[in-house]
């Protein structure tokens, strides 16, 4: 298991490098030029040249890449060109917000989704199943910004339970978490339900019943364990959502976050920030797949053995 983890992490290195090249090239293909944003208005070509040199944009592409990736490996993401701060500090400021919001939303949608999934699967085909799944579906059918505003109207304005927006205190997290969580719940519930139904139909469940095991025990201790494997795999892959998927919610609730940082920087052509944010997202995704694989192996002895 440990060996496998190490091997997988080693394996991530080339993938990570490949991804970083793709990101680097993609960013350099974007229209617009950060130097434009930086140049004093009316500045002459020599000032442009000076700035270009200062940021190393005049060197061959591969050199720029090597320089950049070399620094990244040492934890230095460079300086934001437009926002004039170390990229690391910009990201450091945004990341905690994204992590708490995304993490909590993930938690909520996982717990809620799995619960709904279990109930729906246990009463498959009944009105309870249809009602729950229909409700969850409807909840995920509205655009996020719309849900967010409605939630504010109901819970902040009419009931006064939560603050409208901002990022101060746990209360201000509730509505954004619910907004994102609703969409995620639908996905998790759907996957859980299907996985449970699939597992319920497998032969071993009948044998468990034949052994006289209580149905609730079967459902929670045996079937759920099987069902969790695909759920965990899908959730792990969706880690990108945790960090970057909250853009609209960040706008509606006036919260900082990696998603809005990325989009803002993209629009300002602040290359270093965009590069770093994308890289971090990609890294999260890669780690997510790794985590998914490890969890899968931890949960399934067959996969564990395959790794040996």
């Amino acid at each position, binding site marked *: 298991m440990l060996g496998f983890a190490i091997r997988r992490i080693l394996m991530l290195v080339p993938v990570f490098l490949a991804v970083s090249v793709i990101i680097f090239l993609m960013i350099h293909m974007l229209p617009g030029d950060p130097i434009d944003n930086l140049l004093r208005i009316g500045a002459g070509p020599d000032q442009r040249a000076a700035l270009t040199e200062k940021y190393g944009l005049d060197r061959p592409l591969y050199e720029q890449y090597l320089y950049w990736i070399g620094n990244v490996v040492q934890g230095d993401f460079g300086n934001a060109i437009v926002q004039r701060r170390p990229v690391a500090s910009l990201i450091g400021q945004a990341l905690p917000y994204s992590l708490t919001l995304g993490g909590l939303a993930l938690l909520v949608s996982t717990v809620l989704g799995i619960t709904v999934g279990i109930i729906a699967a246990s009463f498959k085909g009944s009105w309870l199943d249809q009602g729950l799944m229909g409700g969850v579906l409807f909840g995920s059918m509205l655009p996020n910004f719309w849900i967010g505003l409605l939630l504010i109207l109901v819970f902040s304005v009419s009931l006064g339970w939560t603050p409208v927006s901002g990022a101060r205190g746990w209360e201000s997290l509730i509505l954004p978490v619910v907004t994102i969580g609703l969409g995620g719940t639908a996905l998790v519930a759907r996957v859980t339900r299907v996985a449970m139904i699939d597992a319920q139909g497998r032969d071993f469940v009948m*044998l468990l019943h034949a052994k006289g095991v209580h149905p609730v025990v079967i459902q929670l201790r045996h079937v759920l364990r*099987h069902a969790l494997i695909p759920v965990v795999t899908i959730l792990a892959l969706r880690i990108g959502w945790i960090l970057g998927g909250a853009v609209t919610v960040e706008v509606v609730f006036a919260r900082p976050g990696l998603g809005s940082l990325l989009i803002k920087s993209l629009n300002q052509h602040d290359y270093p920030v965009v590069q770093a944010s994308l890289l971090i997202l990609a890294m999260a995704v890669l780690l997510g797949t790794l985590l998914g694989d490890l969890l899968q192996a931890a949960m399934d002895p067959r996969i564990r053995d395959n790794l040996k």
Partner: protein
Amino acid sequence: MLMEVKDLSLSIGKVALLDRVSFSVDRGQVLGLVGESGSGKSLTALALTGLVRRIGGRITGGSIVFDGQELSDLPEPAYRKLRGKRIAFITQNPMSALDALKTIGDQVDQVSRLHLGLSRKAARAHTVDILTRLRIPEAATVARAYPHQLSGGMKQRVVIAMALAADADLIIADEPTTALDVTVQAQIVMILSELVKKRNIGLILITHDMGVVAQICDKVCVLYAGRVAESGPVWQLFDTPRHPYSAALIGCIPREGMAPGALKGIPGTVPSALNYGAECCRFASRCTRADALCHTTRPLPHSQGAALVACHHPQGTAAQPEALDV
């Protein structure tokens, strides 16, 4: 009688799938339940173990008496206490019957802890003991293994071990060897037949394989389209099958010394459960002996020799089935 089933009828939804099925099995006896695919063998097993409710089925008539106790209307909690403890069920496919995420030991322990109230430790010792008795080498190690690390034959023995873990009185085995190789099948079948003798328990063996029936069963019950066609002692069935269907079935087995071309099969196919028809012989459309009566009146089981046969025109004592056209 350890278990006596009388006129058991069963439906799933509106479809009647079993129609007045009767048979019985005693301690030390092996009852073979045979019939073509879809004839209701597995459903019968599910009905006996009270599991048929799980797939939406409902017993619509008849009785199941187990050790003096009526089971057909037993509430689920009481049934659950019985199941696994006194009536053990060995399901069809050993490859998938075990929970892939738990160790063999845990799965066998579960039975004795649940039904015998053994402690974790005692249960494991018990498990290892049973596995050893089923001739599993290094039982303690195997108990720590996961299902995928075992061969099919081993897994099937583990499932049998579960059936024994709480000292069941009756084992119902649904095609325990279909998915296994012949050599492994031989092992499993021999283990089961020994168990019946040694422990003096009852065994209901559901199988396709007439060879297995011939070798280890004492009684046979031939199901056709949800009804019993013929049931009786095994020697009579093979010797002088009375129902044209059982006769034809036996004629389908390739045997040593059979002339080329002798194997004919039964023409036509089993009717689907949706158009079984109530007032007729369900085999009539494939039967060479069928006449108008067979198409309008349901044959009732009656004694023919040592067996009960549900046929208007049972065969005499002819050992060979009459010539049938494909």
